[in-house]
């Protein structure tokens, strides 16, 4: 490097840093008095919001925006932990009023009975209206057909879209998190869907600051994801902090299980072992709660929420990789389902 160039680089560095220092000084002299005042006011208070409070405030802001800007929102509620957290956030957003929109459950007909009981108890307790879209009805009258692999997760899309159209929902809250999957990582917080519920990932609206643009035309609707920025660990820490009740299957319990595709499957009405699959009793828990036909349990002794927080913090597998057969089909499994109108 030539001496000349070195000198030039040095000059530029100094100039840049002195410019920065100058600006910092200007800013500082302007705000130093206020800074002292604020510091004084904040004595004893938290200087910055802790991570969970930041995420909670962001989610509540989103929920309130959607409730204010849309005519007929609904909240997707399955009894799974993410939807339970979302409903909890909604109760906080509108306190002392009740949650001003119904909850919608797409029932695959293969749900864990404990989770359905929990769902019913929760809506009863909060006084919210429950709308159920039933995959079984669609199978019974031939609008849908059972898949060869037995999983009903992909079959949820049609009943979901029909429920949205029939109830004229213009915004639907989902508990999707961006850390769950690579395609979800690209989803906006407000995601516009066309008449067919399709997601067009190449044509998403830019989402700037915390100004959410929910404008849509007749036939379109919006999916809103208030907990986009939460990770699985955030969810569990929040459940611990807020003492949120969950279905018992999230915690360690004894269960008759068998192994299939490298996952532990529960024995149930809709989930039976084949002749070659040996049934054993294990101590397990669920990291995700979906359709019994495609959700696997993990071997775990985590019997309390504190245990689960520790376990999740130390886990070396993602929750979907560990427990969801439907996401293993291909690298773009989630993207394809989302494009078709799935969450």
């Amino acid at each position, binding site marked *: 490097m030539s001496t000349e160039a*070195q000198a030039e680089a040095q000059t530029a*560095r100094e100039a840049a840093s002195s410019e920065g220092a100058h600006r910092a000084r200007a800013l500082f002299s302007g705000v130093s008095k206020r800074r002292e005042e604020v510091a004084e006011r904040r004595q004893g208070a938290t200087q910055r919001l802790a991570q969970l409070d930041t995420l*909670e405030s962001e989610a509540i802001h989103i929920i309130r925006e959607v409730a204010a800007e849309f005519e007929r929102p609904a909240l997707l509620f399955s009894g799974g932990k993410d939807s339970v957290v979302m409903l909890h956030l909604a109760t906080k957003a509108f306190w002392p009023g009740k949650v001003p929109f119904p909850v919608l459950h797409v029932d695959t007909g293969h749900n864990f009975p404990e989770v359905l009981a929990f769902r019913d108890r929760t809506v009863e307790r909060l006084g919210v209206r429950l709308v159920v879209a039933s995959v079984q009805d669609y199978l019974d009258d031939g609008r849908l057909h059972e898949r060869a692999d037995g999983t009903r997760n992909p079959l949820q899309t049609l009943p979901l879209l029909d429920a949205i159209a029939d109830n004229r929902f213009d915004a639907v809250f989902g508990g999707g998190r961006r850390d769950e999957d*690579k395609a979800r*990582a690209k989803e906006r917080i407000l995601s516009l869907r066309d008449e067919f519920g399709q997601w067009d990932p190449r044509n998403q609206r*830019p989402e700037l600051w915390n100004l959410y643009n929910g404008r849509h035309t007749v036939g379109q609707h919006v999916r809103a994801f208030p907990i986009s920025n939460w990770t699985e660990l955030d969810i569990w820490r929040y459940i611990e902090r807020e003492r949120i009740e969950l279905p018992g299957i999230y915690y360690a319990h004894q269960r008759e299980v068998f192994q299939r595709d490298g996952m532990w499957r529960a024995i149930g009405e809709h989930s039976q072992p084949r002749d070659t699959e040996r049934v054993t009793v294990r101590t397990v828990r669920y990291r995700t709660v979906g359709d019994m036909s495609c959700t696997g349990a993990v071997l775990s002794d985590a019997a309390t929420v504190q245990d689960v927080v520790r376990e999740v913090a130390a886990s070396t*597998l993602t929750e979907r990789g560990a427990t969801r057969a439907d996401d293993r089909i291909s690298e773009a499994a989630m993207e394809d389902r989302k494009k078709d109108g799935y969450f």
Partner: protein
Amino acid sequence: MTTTTAPATPAVQAVPLLEEGTLFRFATAGSVDDGKSTLVGRLLHDSKAILADQLDAVTRTSQERGFGGASDGTTKIDLALLTDGLRAEREQGITIDVAYRYFATDRRSFILADCPGHVQYTKNTVTGASTADAVVLLIDARKGVLEQTRRHLSVAHLLRVPHVVVAVNKIDLVGFSEDVFRAVETDVLRAALELGVGDVTVVPVSALDGDNVVDRSARTPWYYGPALLEVLETLPATDEIETGLEPFRLPVQLVLRPQGALAPGVDAGAFRDYRAYAGQLASGTVRVGDEVVVLPSGRSTTVTGIDFAGTQLHEAFAPQSVALRLADEIDIARGDLIAAAGTAGEPTRDLAASLCWLSPKPLREGAKVLIKHGTRTVQGLVRSVTGKLDLDSFTLQAAPGLELNDIGDVEIRLAAELPAEAYASHRRTGAFLVVDAADGNTLAAGLVR
């Protein structure tokens, strides 16, 4: 499909990261092929944010595609696959859309907005930068500062991103040459100086091999600064500190007036006449007893209570979501702004603003648009385009309008008053969206001058 993952048995080892920290948001930016996805993949991989099944999947795909690996032949995985989430991205080897990633170190939790480099995706850089505490700007050491680099610096400057960290990547491909690094560093600092970007850190890295990404590299002995991740771990979260110091502002999202629709368990007698104004503090701090003014009406009143889900707070600060009770029964609705008394300027119907134009539909003088500011949306008429930013000289040049990715200054006449404030001093209440009245699409990011 040949997944052979063993039944999931979470291995409970030592207890990492049980302490709850604070969030730091940063965005990446660069030109195409600068290796941004690889750098992000490297950050995630080396900070151990990638879990075993994700790594398995990426390793498998890398092998199927015959990925060559690092220059020393050790790495056999294409790290870019960790972040390129859409099929088209993986097939074309480019990033199309912003991908959000989450990772944590012992010091901090990060939200990373990985923004694409193609010029046509600059809108995503604007998106990522609008909420970022820092922007990591990639430069290919072999190519140096490009127009796209200058564009991204302009965006970072305009949006007041507090810190810019420049990663001079592919330093391995120039033989770890200090001369090359210093030349690029000089160009970047000069450009930053012209723009007035204050806080710039320049780091030589090899995303492919990991030099100076998480750990300092022995292959750049002439570089004494911290590795990229160290920089990110230690930068002050200036955005939040500054926002906290700005005067109190709360855009009203909705009025909580439950009357008959009280939540179960709430005392009907005590809350029958409850009325509060729900919103997220855009800036500053508010306390019970504070004098406030409601804009645009200009009426004054006093804060009598701050509620959050059944808890009465003594004070609240940005970015908390709360509900305020006020002393006087004045007409307040969604779209109004509650501000600390004596700190707000007059609401205006004439907006002088800078725009980042994000739509393929060009802007022409006379266009009718919608302006979304805080929680209020009003009609606007673009009376004139004062000029557009020339990226070579960083000066405004006369232009008939703005095209996709242009940055320019405009004058907008509003159908109703807005309590608009300068973005330079009020980040939240100085920002707005320009929305297409016909199809509802977002056309531009707006910043009040």
